[in-house]
Every structure is written in structure tokens, then in C-alpha cells.
């Protein structure tokens, strides 16, 4: 981070000098820095950096603050922080709802990216369980046993996300009658540490993977294909293969939202419009994450490339 920070600072100076002219139109808006939060995963760093660069091009003063994904809501409610660029439907919904209910936090709309989350296995597991990726293959006892460990045998072991992510995997296993035991990893880092470990040994593993992320790019594997998610599946027990239980289907795709302090609209109306207009899609993001995490580029370099390649797009967002 050290290099990044000083570089960022110098770049910030250069950009704001450039932007002095462009910023004339925004002169009546506040010159206070708009505080964007940085979390600890690459995709979010890139999204935030792009938004920050765009706002600077529009003549705004921007500051990056490192903040925890969930603890940040305390800052967003009081206006200590202004914008959070990635709030995942799948993991942040409850905290976001609690915050927006206070009226002090506003949902700035979808980023355009969709969170894909599902059971995932490395390709080499297909040999032991040839019916995959169809979920019905998992019902086969031999297949489940291939995924087992000493603690779960003869049931298969499925490593779910942290309990805080929700996801209804315990319910899913019961509803679809899968011979699997759900183990919850405590944190996302632990989840991928287990995958890395198993992959190095070509050992069995079945776990919760989400995208956009570097893991599907680094490891060869596939998502399990469950019956496709519908709203009824989660709400109506009668839907699907199990007439008595809900959750007899796969996980939903979730929006990734932009959220922020409700005061942004009045303090920086132009920036507010730009943030609302910002969209990007999964493929673009996936490529950028791979560039940073696997090809060793810096977040800044990747953001610069995107800015250069998409000038028409972002200029539209800031009305130029």
C-alpha cells in the first residue's frame, strides 16, 4: 500500500490541477472531499478507484478511507463517510436495510455487476463424480463420499460461507435431501485458504465460491447446476422437487449496490448524478481483477487503462 498511497497522492495532485478548468462548472458545489470507502478485496478497490478518478475528472475533491465492509455504515449514517461502491445484495442486505431505514443512508442504485454465488468444485473432481455439474449427481452416496473427510464421512463435506453471509445452505441440503454436511468458514479468507490447500494436493473439495473474484480465474472448476432460482422457490414450499420445503433450488444472482450518505445529493449534486450513473459489468470487472491479483498489475494501472479505454462512457456520466 505504501507505494500506492504516495503515487495516488501525486496522481491526485496532477489530476486536480487538470481538473481545475473542467471543474469550473461545479464551482458552486462543496469543495470538501467526497470520502469513498476502501475495503479489503481487489474488485472493490478497482470500482472505488474508477469512481474516484471519474469524480476527480469532474473537478471534485476525493478522499479514500479504509473501512470495514459492515462497520462502515456507522460512518455513512453520520456523514463521516460518503460513498461505498460495492454493497453486495447477498452479504450486505440486512446491514444496508437497517441503515437505509434510518433515512440517513441512501441506495445509489445497482453497479451493474451481479454477484454469482453457488456451490463450486475443481474440475478434477469430475472423475470421481461423473454426473456433475448436474446437482442430482450429488445425491449418489459414492459421489458424496468422494467429498467427505474423517469428520463428516460418509457424508460429503460442503464448506459454506461465513454464517453472516446467510445463503440457506443448511436448508438447501435438507430440502434437496443431499448427503452433505454444511461446515461454515468464518471468513472469506479462510474459505479460499481451504480451496488453495485442496487444489495444491488435488484433494476433494466442494465449497461456496462467488464472482466477480479471482478464484474462478485461477482455479479450474465449475459451478454445480441446481434448479434455477425463482422467488417462489424461496417463499413457497410447494414449488420444486420437494413439496414440503422451500430452498429446493440454487442461489439467486444478487445485485451489487452503490450506497452512501443521504446528504451527498444536496452537498454535491453533480457528483451524486455521476455516482448514480456509474455502471460496469461482470466481464470487465473479472478481467481487471485477474490483471491485478494474478498478473501482478497495480490497481492504479488497471484503473488508468480502463479510464483511457472508456473515455466516452464516463464522460457521459459526468455530463461532458
Amino acid at each position, binding site marked *: 500500500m505504501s507505494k500506492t*498511497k*504516495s503515487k495516488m497522492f501525486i496522481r491526485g*495532485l496532477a489530476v486536480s490541477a487538470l481538473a481545475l478548468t473542467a471543474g469550473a462548472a461545479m464551482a458552486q458545489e462543496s469543495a470538501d472531499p*467526497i470520502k469513498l470507502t476502501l475495503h*479489503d478485496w481487489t474488485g472493490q478497490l478497482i470500482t472505488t478507484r474508477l469512481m474516484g478518478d471519474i469524480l476527480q475528472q469532474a473537478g471534485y475533491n476525493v478522499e479514500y478511507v*479504509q473501512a470495514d465492509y459492515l462497520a462502515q455504515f456507522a460512518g455513512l449514517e453520520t456523514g463521516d463517510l460518503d460513498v461505498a461502491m460495492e454493497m453486495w445484495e447477498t452479504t450486505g442486505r440486512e446491514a444496508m436495510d437497517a441503515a437505509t431505514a434510518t433515512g440517513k443512508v441512501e441506495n445509489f442504485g445497482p453497479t451493474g455487476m451481479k454477484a454469482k454465488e453457488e456451490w463450486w468444485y475443481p474440475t478434477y473432481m469430475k472423475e470421481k463424480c461423473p454426473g456433475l455439474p448436474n446437482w442430482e449427481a450429488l445425491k449418489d452416496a459414492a459421489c458424496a463420499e468422494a467429498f467427505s473427510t474423517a*469428520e463428516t464421512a460418509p457424508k460429503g463435506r460442503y464448506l459454506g460461507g461465513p454464517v453472516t453471509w446467510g445463503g440457506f445452505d443448511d436448508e438447501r441440503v435438507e430440502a434437496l435431501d443431499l448427503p452433505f454436511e454444511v461446515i461454515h468458514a*468464518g471468513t472469506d479468507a479462510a474459505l479460499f485458504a481451504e480451496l488453495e490447500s485442496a487444489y*495444491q*494436493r488435488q484433494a476433494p473439495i466442494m465449497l461456496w465460491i462467488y464472482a466477480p473474484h479471482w478464484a474462478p480465474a485461477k482455479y479450474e472448476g465449475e459451478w454445480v447446476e441446481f434448479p434455477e432460482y425463482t422467488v417462489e422457490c424461496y417463499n413457497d414450499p410447494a414449488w420444486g422437487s420437494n413439496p414440503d420445503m422451500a430452498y429446493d433450488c440454487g442461489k439467486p444472482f444478487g445485485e451489487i449496490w452503490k450506497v452512501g450518505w443521504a446528504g451527498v445529493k444536496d452537498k454535491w449534486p453533480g457528483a451524486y448524478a455521476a455516482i448514480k450513473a456509474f455502471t460496469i459489468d461482470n466481464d470487465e470487472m473479472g478481467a481487471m481483477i485477474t490483471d491485478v491479483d494474478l498478473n501482478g498489475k497495480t490497481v492504479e494501472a488497471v484503473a488508468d487503462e480502463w479510464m483511457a479505454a472508456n473515455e466516452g462512457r464516463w464522460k457521459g456520466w459526468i455530463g461532458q
Partner: protein
Amino acid sequence: MAEAILPRARTWPRWSGWVLALGLFLVLRVAGKGLAPWAFDWPKAQTVPVARWISAFTKWLLNEASFGLFTFAELTRFIAAVIDFPYRIVLSLLATGFLKGQGSGAVQILPPLAWIAVIAVFALIGAWAGGRRLALLVAACFTFIAIFGQWQSAMVTLASILVAVPLGVAGGLMLGILAWRSPLFERLIRPVLDLMQTIPVFAYLVPILFLFGFGPTAAVVATLIYAMPPMTRVTQLALARVPGELADLGHMVGCTPRQMLWRVMVPSARDALMVGVNQVIMLSLNMVIIASMIGAGGLGFDVLAALRRLDFGAGLEAGFAIVALAVALDRLSHAAAARQAGSVQGGPVARHPYLAGALLTVLIAAILGLVAPAVQTYPAAWELSTGTFWSRVVEWINVNFFDFLEAIKNAVLLNLLIPFKRFLLGLPWVGVAGLLAFAGWRLGGWRLAVLTGSLTVLIAVAGLWEKAMITVYLCGISTAIAMLIGLPVGILAAERDRLWTVVRAVIDTLQTLPSFVYLMPAVMLFRVGDFTAMIAVVAFAVAPAIRYTVLGLKGVDPRLIEAGRAMGCTEGQILRRIRLRLALPEILLGLNQTIMFALSMLVITALVGTRDLGQEVYIALTKADPGRGLVAGLAVAFIAIIADRLIQAGARAARARLGLGEGAA
């Protein structure tokens, strides 16, 4: 408590009470499930909604509480501003330079201190406080940070530490002195200290962020809450242990109470007080990870980000930069306290050669920095990195030894952890409360019985019984293992100075290296679960077990050992009969701290998928539910308080039985 200790004519042997209590307990455990299921699981419908009350109270405190002229939130924001001021100055000096304006619109007026100047200044402080060797050590620590490219982040972290530690030491010292002077205050503050140290930070993080604002100041406040209690405890213990003759001497030469305190008591307790300072520094650095989550940035953020992309090398480098800071600051504070002031005649430069040298270095470096950027900022081209080396080491172990490690893990899990967990989970809460109350009564009288019994019942009533038992299981086993390692190591190290230097470096490292750094490799080798959590807890909690054992053994009066030797004691007898016995207060304080440390790791263990109270706190944080988090946090604290009080009472009773007198409790 006296009636439990006084020998008196008995018709029944001492242990008969215990037999009776355990017998009743067993009957309840075996036969109770059918007769009284509520004794095992507190009925869900009857759970007292404490969480909702606390949430409502927090809401009121944040939004409405007022002192008339200003609100509570305004008061805390004011305090935050007061803390923020010195922090900004130090941060500007070390990391960002002095800026005009904010954010990306800021313009640098003055650059921060050149890296060479920072190293030189700290080395000069080392030379002033402890001579050339210390200067070299400190310079080496900071150079290490620069070489591994951690300079900028390390300076951000250092800035918050330089603000938090003096505040923590001063506050802890004051509270400790008050507690030593007034037994009433001591009794009031003790539960507060326990709560401060044992309620996981995540439990009160959200209210703190609202009250103090999102950013480094809130991080400093959270650090103070967590790091101050050991200083207070140590101060109180140290002052109580100052030999009576010294106090008498002070009275004889006519000291005023103030002179008595600052000229006699505090200086003679200095060695022990330094243990407290050491703990404040260590615990402050411990909070670096959590501080980085709420906007403090710095090394903690680098560690988290590195571990999220499973870059063990980068995580380790940032982690060891934290250790290097800890070692430098700790050794400097030790030396500064031990320094004998001498007076030198001459002009201002001759009287303050180090200060003059430091100012000169800063000035020269600043001027040179204008011409040569390498003087101002450590050049990126000179940076070293271990790159993928550590990731490959872990991979090699993983590929070659996983089956072996898995076998060990399974053996421990199946034979020790799981049976113990099942046993604890099968206990009826009524029985446990009764048994703890009985233990309290036998060891400390009816007051203790009421305390231990009612706290246990409160945990059950709040609906947290199962998670509390998992907590007890995990922390209990870890504490036992930590003590089994810590006591022998402490005994060995207390007598061998060279070994102690090594051991001290190891435990300082264990205590300050963010557990995340070794937790993720541990997950790769042992999978998520209780075993991995146990490794992390033991690694962290073994530090106080060793440290306090050594402190106690080193503090034993050498004349007593001589006397023992003269009377023909063998070394083993000296150890058992004299040294360990006299060091008992410190060793028990060590046990107390080991338990506290183990409990404070609950937040981390939640990250590897345990289902204890730590997880409950973590869930509450993600659901933005301060009440739920605080209730779980309080349950953790209750467990700590029960353990602490029973240990202390047991120690008092044991000492009284052995005729050792009250000593320092």
C-alpha cells in the same frame, strides 16, 4: 470467607461438601433430562430480551441523551477532536507531511520527516536511553521496515500508537494509584476493568463509531479501552508490593503524601510498572488490525488485504513490520525508565547533545531530501520482498505433510476436544450454576457464591447457554495448554538471562504478530474448525503465562533462596518450596491474564468458523444490532469474571491454609 478457612472441629471431612455437591449434580445430569428439561435448555420463549433493551438504550444515547447544553454525542465528538489534534500532528510529521486543504485537493506545504531522519532520531533516543547497543537495535528495526517496503504504512500505524500509548499508560497509572489508595474504588473499578478487557471490541465497535466518528480517533479510543486494564492492574499490584520498610523510611524523612507517591512508591515499583507499559504497547499494537477496519489504515490494512489474496509473504512482511515497531518501542521504553539521570555542565548544546544531534539530523535530511529524493523517501528500487517464498513453503508443507498433520489433528479432535465439548454441552445450566455457587461459597463465602451463581444464571436467561459452553470448552482447553507450556518455559527462562532474551523475543512476536498472519496458513493445513482456532488462541495466550511466571520468579528475594540453600534444600525443593510459592501471586495473575487473553481471541476464532460467543458478536456486527453484540460480549465478560474471582479466592484460601499470610493479592 473466614468461616471457610478457619480450622474448626468437624464431624465430616473437608471434602464431604464437595462430594455431596457433585453427587447432586450427577443425579441432576443423569435423571434430570426427563424430569426437568428446562434445566438443560432454557426455554426459548422465556428468554429475557436484554438485547432489545440495550439496543433501545444505545439508540437513546446516540440520538437523544443530553446534558442540557450539549448532547452526549456532542461531548464524545469533542473528546474525539481533542484526541485527533495530536494525532494529526504526529501523522503529518511521520507520514503525510503538513497539508493545506483536504482530500485530493490538498497541497503539501512541508514534507514529512525523511525516512533517514526518523531512523536517526529513534537511534539517538536509543543511544540516549540505553547506549550504543540499543541504538543499533532500534535502527535495525526501522531499517527492516524500510527495506521491506512497509515504511509509509508503518508510519501511519506508529502515529496512532504514539498517541494511544502515552494516554493508556497515564490513564492506567492514575486508575491504578486510585485503586491502590482506596479499597472502595478498587472494588468498583475491578469489574469495569474486567469488562473493558474481555468484551470483544466488535461488540461495542458500532456505538463507538457513532460517538467518536469514523476514523483513526475511534480506533485510538477502542485501543485505549482494550489496552489500559493491564496497566491499572499492574500498577496496583506493584504499589502494594513495595516493601513496607521503604514506606516507613519515607514517613520518617517527612515526605508529604504526594512526595511519598511520586518519589518513593512509584520509583521503587518501576520494574513492575514497566511490565504494564510493555503490555500497553503490545496490546495497542494488537489492535492495529481492528483499527485498520475503521479507517486507521496502516499496517493492519496491508495484512488484511494480503491475506485476502492468500499472499502469505506480503502478510508476513507487514506483520513483522508490526513486530519490529513493537520491539523498538518496548525496548526504548524499558531503557528510558531504567536510565539514571546525570547532570552535565555547559551550554545548551553540551547539556543536550542528543536533542541537538536529532534536530541537526532532521534539518540536514530535510535539506538533502530536496536535492536527492532517495533521502526523503526510501527508493522503491531498493526494496526487498520475500515474494512467493512463504506461499511456496506453505504449499510444500501442505503437499508433503498434510496427511500426517491431518492424523494428528484428528487424534486430538476425537480424543480430547470433541469428548470435552460433548461433556460440557450436556451439562444442565441449573447444575452448573449451583456447582459454581457452591465453589464460590467454599472458596470465598456467600458473596462470591451469589456472584458466580447469578452470573451463570444470567447467561442462561439471555439464551446464550450453548454458545457460552462452547466458549468455555475452547478457551478452557487453550488456557490449560498455554499454562502447560508457559509454566515450564517461564521457570527455565527466569534463571537463564540469555534464554530469557530469546523467549522474550518469541513471546513479544507472538503477542504482536497479527494472528491472521499464521491463522490462514493454519487453515490450509488444518481446515476451518476448532483445532485451528485452538492453535491461534494458544499461540496468543501463552505469552502472559510465560511473562508473569518469569516476573514472579525473578522478583523472589535472593536472600531467601540463599537461606534455603544454606539449610540444605535441593534445587528442586528451592523451586517448589520457595520460589514458586513466593511467586504465586504473579503466577496467578498470569493465569488470570492467560484466561483474559484467550477470551479476547474469540473474535478471531469466529473468523475460522467456531460457533461460540465470538461468532454471536460477529453476527451482531454484520446485522448492525448493538444490543445483541453487547449481550454476547457481556456473556464473555461474565465467564471471565467468574473464572477470575474463583481463582483469586482459591489462591487466598490456599495461602491462608499454607500459612503464607495475605501478601499481595
